[in-house]
């Protein structure tokens, strides 16, 4: 196997010659706070390294809370899932350095996987909003989020090394963490950035319970310690390790070899720790939540047609080990799910060709192939007898697999340097296989789909500072193994599989306006996203529970994934504004609104109902002043209105207060200092008004008034 890989690598090395240091955004994707950096003409935004430093997010998802069109839900203290234009989980694509995190086990609704990126290793995060399956393939119904890691920064210095020690503290959860990082140049032949990190967080103190809208009912989730503020089911430990090596093979070819290892331990799922109405000591804990990613990448400038070529071979392992401990009955229900994903990704883009003095053409191409293999098991342990019994199946079926592949192209045609038209298409092939399990009456799966999608776009540069945009994008999501084979307890109830699901197909139409000059950056978008055959949870009866599945029949609510008989539609608008004021002051604001409705899952002939967990109207305001000597002072305001439009499953979801989630506003103060490249400190005084708040759909209330502190020293 190793020999084959080396041979493969050698072939790639012969492809081209030089390449720049990093796969940069396209040249017209200037780094503003509101423009889409990955795909020109699309709605999107970027969180830069400076933003991360000032905001001091608790996690990678937390880094997105100031982005327009993004709303971050937290099912647990150590989990976070970004809603992009009202959709999350399987309906958005998560990437790390362009490599898909999405795999065949991504489940309906929010998931924890973006949390498995160490925010301290991120250089920036790009958010693409709207359907984007032409470039990103399956799951890109509502957008894509790409976390791009830090490269070695040391530059050409022969033999050199630079060590950075970082420490951090947060008062609300007693978080203590640190990172040791080495940035080295090995005779300018190899550049290495390597680090190890650690974080340990205790229970998260909030500002108290969040009651329902128009009532004083305290929801069952989360539960509190006797102080009424500290949330049970919070806290976690985290170990990270990463190595990234850049090898400039020629002036135009660069090899990247990278390995990222994220290990999270003992992270309770807040809404199940304890479960609603259960004893205080009952707790579902992710004992292990690991993600290990290794990849080799070649970046090359081969010729004008293949100006930027990137070929990536990756292997990623996602590992979860859960335990639902019930000390009152000396019982622990355990489960382990592993998925190993091999990936091969190629993409190239041309330069702008000028077939005519007033016409320019540019092409991008790509192909992906990801193969997932699943291992899953479940057991029950009686701790007093010290006996463990294996279940016939885990949450998934042992030995199941998925293939996700596609070919795509995207062309741009610029006329008179005023109007740019874009069109693209993807042909995809998705195949799933899963053996049967007779004891649990699980059917075998052997199915495949070949979706075709495309997009169209227009960008009109009305004048040097005003641009109007319009896009029509198709998205698709083929059902994955979670949809077709999983059995699991979810927030709204027990969910059983449906092996007969068909792919979801989305169509996003959007119009936007951009204003950009020396002191103002502004963009605003309006969109309509329709989703045909939306995979949604429909209520079922106890008689629908599979045999030998007592967890199902004992549940209060029974759900099954079905293709909705009519389109689910989300209307929305979002925008961002950044103003540069005199005296090095800056103001940034965002606003997001979404309104979704879908067919009634119980009976399509009934009135349409709200889509689950659509974020309420929400926004942010940030202010920043920078001194000339390294100091800065800033503030951050986040707010959301109440969300009372609840889907049927929302109503039975203990995470959502009765009547809906109330609105909130919370404000942070930020300050920091940087002395050359030697010392950097950042301080955030969070939730100054000690407001009890919760992002709609979350299990966890926001942190109480407190501070977050970061210090870094380099030598």
């Amino acid at each position: 196997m190793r020999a084959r890989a080396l041979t493969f690598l050698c072939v790639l090395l012969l492809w081209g010659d030089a390449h720049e240091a990093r796969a940069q955004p396209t040249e017209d994707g200037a780094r503003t706070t509101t423009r889409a950096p990955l795909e020109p003409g699309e709605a999107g935004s970027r969180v830069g390294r400076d933003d991360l430093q000032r905001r001091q997010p608790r996690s990678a998802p937390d880094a997105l809370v100031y982005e327009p069109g993004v709303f971050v839900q937290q099912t647990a203290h150590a989990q976070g899932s970004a809603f992009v234009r009202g959709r999350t989980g399987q309906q958005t694509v998560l990437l790390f350095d362009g490599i898909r995190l999405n795999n065949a086990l991504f489940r309906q609704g929010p998931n924890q996987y973006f949390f498995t990126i160490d925010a301290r290793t991120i250089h920036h995060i790009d958010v693409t909003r709207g359907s984007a399956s032409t470039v990103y393939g399956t799951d890109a119904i509502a957008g894509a989020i790409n976390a791009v890691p830090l490269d070695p920064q040391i530059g050409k210095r022969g033999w050199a090394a630079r060590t950075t020690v970082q420490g951090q503290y947060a008062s609300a959860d007693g978080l203590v963490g640190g990172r040791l990082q080495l940035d080295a140049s090995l005779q300018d032949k190899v550049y290495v950035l390597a680090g190890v990190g650690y974080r340990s967080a205790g229970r998260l103190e909030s500002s108290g319970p969040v009651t329902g809208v128009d009532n004083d009912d305290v929801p069952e989730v989360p539960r509190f310690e006797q102080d009424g503020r500290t949330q049970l089911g919070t806290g976690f430990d985290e170990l990270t390790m990463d190595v990234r090596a850049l090898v400039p093979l020629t002036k135009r070819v660069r090899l990247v070899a990278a390995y990222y290892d994220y290990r999270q331990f003992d992270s309770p799922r807040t809404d199940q720790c304890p479960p609603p109405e259960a004893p205080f000591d009952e707790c579902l804990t992710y004992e292990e939540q690991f993600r290990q990613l290794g990849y080799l990448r070649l970046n090359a400038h081969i010729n004008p047609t293949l100006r930027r070529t990137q070929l990536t071979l990756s292997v990623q392992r996602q590992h979860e080990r859960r335990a639902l401990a019930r000390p009152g009955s000396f019982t622990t229900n355990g489960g382990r799910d592993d998925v190993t994903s091999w990936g091969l990704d190629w993409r190239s883009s041309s330069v702008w060709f000028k077939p005519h003095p007033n016409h320019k053409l540019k092409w991008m191409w790509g192909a992906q192939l990801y193969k997932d293999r699943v291992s899953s098991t479940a057991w029950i342990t009686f701790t007093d007898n010290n006996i463990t019994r294996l279940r016939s199946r885990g949450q998934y079926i042992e030995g199941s697999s998925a293939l996700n592949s596609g070919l795509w192209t995207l062309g741009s045609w610029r006329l008179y340097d005023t109007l740019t038209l874009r069109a693209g298409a993807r042909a995809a092939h998705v195949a799933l296989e899963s053996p049967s399990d007779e004891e649990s009456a699980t059917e075998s799966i052997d199915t495949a789909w070949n979706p075709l999608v495309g997009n169209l776009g227009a960008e009109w540069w009305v004048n040097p500072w005003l641009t109007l945009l319009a896009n029509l994008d198709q998205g698709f999501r083929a059902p994955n193994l979670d949809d077709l084979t999983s059995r699991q307890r979810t927030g709204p109830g027990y969910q059983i599989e449906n092996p007969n699901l068909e792919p979801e197909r989305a169509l996003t139409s959007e119009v936007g306006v951009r204003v950009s000059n020396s002191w103002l950056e502004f963009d605003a978008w309006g969109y309509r996203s329709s989703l045909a055959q939306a995979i949604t949870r429909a209520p079922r009866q106890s008689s629908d529970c599979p045999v030998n599945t007592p967890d199902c029949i004992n549940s209060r609510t029974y759900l099954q994934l079905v293709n909705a008989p009519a389109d689910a539609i989300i209307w929305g608008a979002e925008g961002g504004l950044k103003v540069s004021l005199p005296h090095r002051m800056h103001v940034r604001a965002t606003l997001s609104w979404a309104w979704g409705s879908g067919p009634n899952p119980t009976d399509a002939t009934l009135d349409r109902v709200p889509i689950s967990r659509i974020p309420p109207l929400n926004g942010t305001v940030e202010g920043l002043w920078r001194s000339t000597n390294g100091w800065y002072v800033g503030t951050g305001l986040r707010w959301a209105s109440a969300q009372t439009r609840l889907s049927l499953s929302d109503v039975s979801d203990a995470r959502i207060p009765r009547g809906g989630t109330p609105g909130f506003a919370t404000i942070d103060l930020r300050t920091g200092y940087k002395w050359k490249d030697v010392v950097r400190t950042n301080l955030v005084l969070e939730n100054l008004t000690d407001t009890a708040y919760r992002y709609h759909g979350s299990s966890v209330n926001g942190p109480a008034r407190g501070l977050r502190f970061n210090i870094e020293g380099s030598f």
Partner: protein
Amino acid sequence: MKALSKHCIISLLLLGLSTPLIGCEDDDPIEENNPTENNATSKKEQLDCAAACTDLGSCGADLDVSCLSDFQQTCVAQCEQDGSVAGFAQVSCATATAFVDSALALEGTCAQVNTCAPDASDYSPGGDDTWDACISDAGTYERFEPSISSAGRVAGFEEIADLLWRKDASPSKADFLAAREIYAAGEGLDSRVQRREDEHYPAVVENGEVLQCRDEGVPAKDSDRCVGPAQISPIINTAFEAGIDGKDPWVNAAKIEAALTWFMYVSTHKEAITCTVKKKDCDSAYAYYTGDKPRAEGIGLAGIFKRQVPQAHERVWDGLLAVRCWRDLDGEEEAINLDLRDRAVNQMDKALLYGLSQLVGQRTAQALAYEKNQRSAALAWLEIMVPVLERSASEINATTSTSLQSTFTSYTGAQGQAESALDDLETLYVCP
């Protein structure tokens, strides 16, 4: 009425437990039955097999045996075996004894027999009562939700019963392990035992604040209110642990049986009370008793009552319908007619307690008749279930309650103790 000898009573009690029939002594005077009396189905009469045989003989058509309880079928079989009745017959046995009445079909359908005399304030589906017309009048339970999760737990009880105490042989270690897996299933019996509060007792209050039994340290403050975590769960856990280790399988199976019976009784009552604020809890009350089965069937507690105390089964059903009727007449999201609720719940609870008392009486007799393991099992069952009656018994008659509890404090299954216990039970609990 003539007195029936204690020996005969105990012997007859055993009929309901599928034990070898111990016939009454010839010189024992047999009490005459009077079906119009409120205690028409007292154990003295219902267990009078000899009288039953006679009465059955006076009936004129074939008896639908499927309508009979286990006890009654045993009795009928005994009659057949004795040859005292050649071919059972019944058409409309208007003059039949209470025993026969409780067993036979009325107008050709399986018995919806109620030989107890309800209180004037009780709800009586389809009959004369003081209640307004309501959804229960058709005699069937109309649920709020299409599915009731409690039914799954009662089905789990049945599976456990088949593994542990409904088999002829001693349950094995593997049986206990399999039963514990059922018990510990997600959202299963264990999950509800852990959180069960007994609504017969006031909520735990400390410094003016209502505490919940699920919270740390609260069960220790009030083990009566926090009956699940403080009392029932430890019994079950200990019994499973010992059973899986192969210790005293009969006894540990009986303990689990008793504890789960206790749980289902408390749950039926609890859910009826909390239906005040959550309508679907009425469904849970119904399902914790019936297992979501119709009146003529029934699993879990309903199955036990139907087999062993059929008249109580009928009255519990009426009580459940009363609860549903109350929630129909009081349709507010949070109920406001709490007087009507209390009437309904009390009607149901009275019937449940009567049924439990009858089970205690039968098990008392069993303890006397059996030997060794089965005797120990019966005693273990009684050790758990007799205190369950203490609260209600002391409310009915404190002196008799004290006597009953005193008897069982040192109960060994001796005949004198059994006679005393049965007398006390009969005094305390009448067919409602």
